[in-house]
């Protein structure tokens, strides 16, 4: 086995080169490069964790916003209902007031009209008396040939009509 046969002759150079190469590996690779690579990995992991945390926070914020939105929506609906009820109330009151006003006006105008009708009837009745008196004078002139003064004719007509 050459490893054992040559050991006495070669251990010096074997150990020398091993220490040289392994020393290079340890100091340059092990202590120089490995920590940097590990830091890269750690930085990445930290960044991923931070990003996840930020995403979680953003989601919580979104949840809160939505909750607020929903609360405002509910509030707005209630407000709308109140406003509608108020509007209905006001409209009903306005309607009632107008109906009342129109009723009053109608009553006033009905009363006026009735008094006008009464006046007209009175006037008409008076006219009827005058016409009847004229007709009576004419009849008297033609039948009896007597000219009766209008006042007497009127008196006679009135007494006959109301008699």
């Amino acid at each position, binding site marked *: 086995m*050459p*490893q*054992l046969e040559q050991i006495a002759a070669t251990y010096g*150079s*074997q150990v020398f080169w*091993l220490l040289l190469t392994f020393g290079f*590996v340890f100091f340059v690779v092990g202590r120089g490069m*490995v*920590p940097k690579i590990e830091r890269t990995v750690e930085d990445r992991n930290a960044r991923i964790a931070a990003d996840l945390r930020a995403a979680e926070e953003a989601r919580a914020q979104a949840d809160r916003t939505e909750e607020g939105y929903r609360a405002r929506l509910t509030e707005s609906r209630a407000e709308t209902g109140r406003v509608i009820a108020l509007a209905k109330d006001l409209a009903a009151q306005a309607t009632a007031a107008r109906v009342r006003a129109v009723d009053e006006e109608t009553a006033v105008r009905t009363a006026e009209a009735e008094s006008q009708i009464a006046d007209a009837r009175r006037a008409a009745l008076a006219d009827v008396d005058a016409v009847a008196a004229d007709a009576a004078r004419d009849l008297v002139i033609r039948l009896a040939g007597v000219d009766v003064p209008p006042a007497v004719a009127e008196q006679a007509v009135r007494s006959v009509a109301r008699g």
Partner: protein
Amino acid sequence: MHQFEIEGLFPLFELGGQQIAFTNSALWMVLTAATLALFMYGGMKRQLVPTRWQAAVEGVTGFISGMALNNIGPEGRRFVPYLFSIFMFILIANLLGMAPTGVVGLHPFTVTSHLTVTGVLAVLSFAIVLVVGFARHGFHFFSLFIPHGTPALLMPLMFFIELFSFLVRPFSLGLRLFVAMTAGHILMKVLAGFVINGINAGPGIAAIVSIPSFFLMVGITLLELLVSAIQAYVFALLTSLYINDAVNLH
């Protein structure tokens, strides 16, 4: 056995009576370090959204830091550079030793099939355990050798058993990797020899010996790739467990 031989490519200098040469073993160690550095360099873009390469590099570092955190606890972060270096160095050395570069004449050399290499790595791990253990706990570190609930009568005996099992750790750590890689490569070599020799012995023998051996060798090769990863994992895992002993005692 030729594959385990160290060949000096060119000599460099002498150090304490030992000839330091640039050998084929040194070449594959340098290739291992260069491959690892290249692999890691591809993961240094540090983008927020990783490329595939970056994701691969981050997967490996995440795997090792996960192992350190699980086995050692929050303090394991300090040992991630060492655990990562040892895991990746062994893994890439194992895999490069399996590289099919022999097809173009460059015979691969498995650095981790050498006891000197695995031994040094095991001693490094053990030294870290000792330094961390004594630095953190002082002589209280010896309480590691007395499990909780040991009757007073058994304490001396338990102390020596635990001490012995503790001292065996570097040997088992180094030998395990060395033996696993060596045995696997020898097995592949033997099966490859069956295939070649069977073909040379004529069509009848080739049908009986070479073809089954070939299929078996395909399976063994895949198994050996698996072993390459598993041994690197085992080495890093045991190192992390030993460091855990040193950091947290029990």
